[in-house]
């Protein structure tokens, strides 16, 4: 019990510390890492304290310390699964899906007819739950990572398409009129106006797609896989009551997802440096 109370006290102290840091150094670079890190550590300690304090069975919820130990032991397996699921399945699906979506968005951009027809249908398709699509795609594309990539393609395609189409429309009247007075060709106004203007929207879609890609690749493995991969490992480890391994895999997923998201956000910052949302704090 004292563990649980200790954790709660720590939580309150950390919260106060974060408040102080955030007030005192709101813009400092180190604070941007310190505050969320302390928050995360607090969550872990709270978790550890509650698990220990209430003596929760490790078969139900292992303590972070146990997970950390298992993680260290299983790095080989974790890496193999990471390579299979994320590097092969999620990444290739992400690249293909996003690439195709951008291409299709540019292609249908000239045809309002196609847009009016495709977007509602696209929204409908995007609403198809993956748990339904995944078995079908596994049936079509086989057990290995190709079917996982296919699931990812399906999942990321429409969010990116919708954002890109919106982005291509995001130029204002004035900007387009300017191109008109130059009598610019379609290609010229696409390259010099519409594509740059679409970037903030595109990156919105690309960021959403990162988490979707990860979830898609992992979940698809529940419906058939070779004997490696994060989804495979999670489902078998649950059967073996190896919860620390399950949580290690989840930790890998969360780390990879956050890293992937952060990477895309970084590229976004570089590409759309000019957008007001990236200039907050400047002028």
């Amino acid at each position, binding site marked *: 019990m004292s563990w649980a109370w200790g954790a709660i006290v720590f939580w309150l102290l950390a919260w106060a510390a974060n408040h102080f840091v955030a007030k005192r150094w709101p813009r400092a670079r180190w604070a941007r890492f310190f505050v969320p890190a302390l928050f995360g550590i607090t969550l872990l300690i709270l978790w550890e304290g509650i698990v220990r304090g209430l003596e929760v069975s490790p078969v139900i919820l292992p303590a972070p310390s146990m997970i950390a130990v298992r993680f260290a032991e299983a790095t080989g397996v974790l890496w193999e699964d990471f390579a299979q699921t994320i590097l092969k399945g999620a990444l290739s699906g992400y690249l293909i899906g996003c690439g195709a979506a951008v291409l299709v968005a540019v292609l249908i951009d000239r045809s309002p007819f196609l847009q009016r027809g495709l977007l509602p249908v696209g929204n409908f398709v995007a609403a198809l739950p993956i748990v339904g699509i995944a078995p079908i795609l596994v049936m079509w594309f086989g057990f290995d990572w190709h079917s996982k990539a296919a699931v990812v393609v399906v999942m990321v395609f429409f969010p990116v398409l919708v954002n890109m189409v919106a982005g291509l429309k995001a130029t204002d009247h004035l900007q387009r*009129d300017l191109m*008109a007075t*130059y009598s610019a060709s379609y290609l*010229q106004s696409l390259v*010099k106006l519409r594509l*740059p203007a679409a970037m903030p929207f595109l990156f919105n879609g690309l960021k959403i797609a990162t988490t979707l890609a990860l979830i898609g690749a992992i979940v698809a493995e529940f419906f058939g896989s070779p004997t490696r991969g994060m989804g495979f490992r999670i489902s078998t480890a649950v059967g073996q009551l190896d919860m620390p391994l399950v949580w290690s895999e989840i930790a890998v997923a969360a780390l990879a997802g956050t890293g992937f998201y952060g990477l895309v956000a970084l590229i976004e910052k570089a590409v759309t*440096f*000019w957008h007001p949302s990236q200039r907050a704090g400047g002028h």
Partner: protein
Amino acid sequence: MTAIPVIEAEALDLTFQTNDGPIHALKDVNLTIGKGEFVSFIGPSGCGKTTFLRCIAALEHPTGGTLRVNGMTPDEARQARSYGYVFQAAGLYPWRTIAGNVKLPLEIMGYPRAEMNARVEKVLELVDLAGFGKKFPWQLSGGMQQRASIARALAFDADILLMDEPFGALDEIVRDHLNEELLKLWARTEKTIGFVTHSIPEAVYLSTKIVVMSPRPGRITDVIESTLPKERPLDIRDTPEFLEIAHRVREGLRAGHAYDE
């Protein structure tokens, strides 16, 4: 001044269809602008000045009457790249530097690289922005942005320059300076200029012809041919001739307004 007509509007009519019902923005507008003229449009807010300029540049299409530019339709004239247009707002592309923005029309029209750079430098100097080429638009004040957009329109050789309140956001001194520069440029290049302004002295100082408009539906109520000489020092603004024209413009404007003091 009966030069070759560059812009000929005959019984021009334009009605916008909006969901509140139609808005009659231009009604029976007749106007001929000769080559090399400097024409100012003045009139209360919402009287259709911008709309008329946009019709000339083929950005709007009249719903009645005829409009010819260099003997062609406005659309054909646009394809011949006859226009430089300065919009009421600067409208710079935020992802391009100032130099990049000025270069934009040159890229589109396919100027050789060396000439592009020379031209960009020249026009930036003209509007007093030399040294700011590498900045991004949001790093400049509103007035500087507006000057950059003027530079952009001057960078290439359009016969017809259409300017919609280009100097609205500038202070009087800069404005005077740019007025003078504009006059010099006009004298040198013999461009035909259409110029919208709210300032009566500015209109009188710059123009060979002042078009007074009144709202709705937008009509031309007066066309005043300037009797001022082509050579105009700034202090011409204190001459009786100048004040006389300014008075006539003011009267024309006042007639279109609701309040009469």
